[in-house]
């Protein structure tokens, strides 16, 4: 603990690391199934707002807010997923970015919209300023416990029939279908699970940062979540978890570099992407890198082999 604090990882940094690891896992689920979806930030904000409204306007405890946020996001993922998951690759990415924007603008104008529909003054999402003064009730152990449970689910998922179907859908959709796998069901279930995880992270984070506004969950956040998964690597579920940890901790650890912090931070990320394209947690990538480095040291042997 003392050591962590000395390198800049205070309790609040650790809490953000845990939250971002959860977000990384929510991204991992969709990528593992071969869906390039950027909807996670949108579901995170649905979760955050639902959770906060439950704890603030309805005086519910945190766990009710958490379950409520997860439930609402999970239910909304169905009508979003069914049409959108017919798309693939970059088209799916664009459509889900669109979804994120729709959510952001809906939340931004929710009070006015609901007000004009009901004829009463509504004060739930509070527009662009967002909700402030949320009590800080998320504890580190909440986050750690949530992450442990999620990790356990990930391990079990990979040893289950459904988890194998996910991998099959990613690798070859038609072949998976010919094996008796319901591709549409698999994709939509994963999309829901991913939405639920993102929403949970949203609720927990809102009760930590104490303030939320629609702008917190825009395109930037969607790309950050993607970065956790890509930097960590998606060959195992540990990758996005590590990615979430590293990307959150790195700027703090590099505090001593003062004004050069951004440069060092960016350079490290660039090095990872160039030399470990499969991400940080990817044994094959490390061994390749190792051969490459050793090859250079030993001089011409490698070049001779190649030519």
């Amino acid at each position, binding site marked *: 603990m003392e050591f962590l604090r000395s390198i800049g990882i205070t309790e609040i940094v650790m809490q953000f690391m845990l939250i971002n690891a959860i977000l990384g896992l929510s991204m991992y689920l969709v990528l593992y199934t071969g869906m390039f979806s950027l909807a996670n930030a949108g579901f995170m904000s649905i979760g955050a707002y639902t959770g906060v409204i439950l704890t603030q306007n309805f005086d519910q405890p945190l766990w009710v807010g958490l379950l409520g946020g997860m439930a609402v996001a999970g239910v909304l993922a169905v009508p979003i997923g069914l049409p959108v998951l017919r798309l693939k690759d970059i088209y799916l990415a664009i459509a889900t970015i669109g979804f994120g924007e729709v959510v952001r603008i809906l939340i931004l104008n929710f009070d006015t919209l609901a007000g004009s529909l009901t004829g009463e003054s509504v004060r739930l999402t509070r527009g662009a300023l967002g909700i402030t003064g949320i009590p800080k009730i998320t504890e580190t152990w909440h986050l750690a416990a949530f992450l442990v449970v999620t990790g*356990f*689910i990930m391990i*079990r*998922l990979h*040893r*289950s*029939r*459904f*988890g*194998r*179907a996910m*991998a*099959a859908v990613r*690798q*070859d959709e*038609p*072949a*998976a*279908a*010919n*094996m*008796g*796998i*319901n*591709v*549409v069901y698999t994709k939509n279930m994963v999309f829901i699970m991913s939405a639920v995880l993102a929403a949970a992270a949203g609720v927990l984070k809102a009760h930590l940062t104490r303030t939320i506004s629609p702008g917190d969950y825009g395109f930037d956040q969607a790309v950050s979540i993607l970065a956790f998964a890509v930097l960590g690597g998606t060959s195992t579920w540990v990758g996005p978890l590590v990615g979430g940890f590293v990307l959150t901790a790195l700027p703090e650890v590099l505090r001593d570099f003062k004004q050069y912090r951004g440069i060092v931070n960016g350079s490290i990320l660039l090095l990872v992407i160039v030399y470990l394209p499969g991400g940080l947690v990817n044994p094959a990538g490390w061994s390749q890198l190792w051969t490459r480095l050793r090859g250079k040291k030993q001089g011409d042997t490698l070049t001779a082999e190649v030519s």
Partner: protein
Amino acid sequence: MLELRSVSRLFGGLQALNQVNMLVPAGKVVGLIGPNGAGKTTLINNISGLDHPTSGEILFNGTPIHMRPPHHIAQLGIARTYQNIRLFGEMTALENLLISQHGRGSASILDALVFTPRYLREERRLRDTASDLLERFHLTQVAKLRAGNLPYGDQRRLEMARALGTQPKLLLLDEPTAGMNPVETEALGEQILRLVREDGLTVLVIEHDMSLIHQVCDEIYVLNFGQIIAQGTPDEIKRNPQVIEAYLGQDEE
């Protein structure tokens, strides 16, 4: 077992299949031959549900299947292989065979989470079946290797094993001998005959290799430009002038 009634498939202006009628009786091996681009793979895609006919009907044991999604058709008991191998290359041979039994299991994620007896029993059953298949197709040695890294012959056999993992009644083989030498081709032929004799399978095989066709087929259909131009026993087909013309071109005289 399988019946096609005037099945047509149009791709824009291209008539890929034109009023195809076909009957695959239970327990038989039916061959489908024809020049490149004749529509053979389109036909298999339509039967296995990856594609759907523009008009016509496909009946499997009397049930219309032509508008069903592919996973339904797989669960009804139709399995296939592909012309260009489509294994799950990042997974091991064993995992490929576990996936193929997807439709034969029922344990949910929740079962897996809390280790219910149902999950444990099912998982054991899937693994047993998988190792039987590995043994049968001489793949036990490579069970733990990535399917994408296996030698070509192993991949071909694994694909066949994977099709059998779905426990089909009807097996569709799309050019199973592509890239095989005559010895391997004959061994494959014997394997197909064993599947019919011992497992009671029905087989529809697309093939260019006439030696395999003669070795295994009870009946042959010839497809050219989307139309069935001939049908009969291997010997009849060999002498059919229309077939010779489709394959070798018309005599100039």
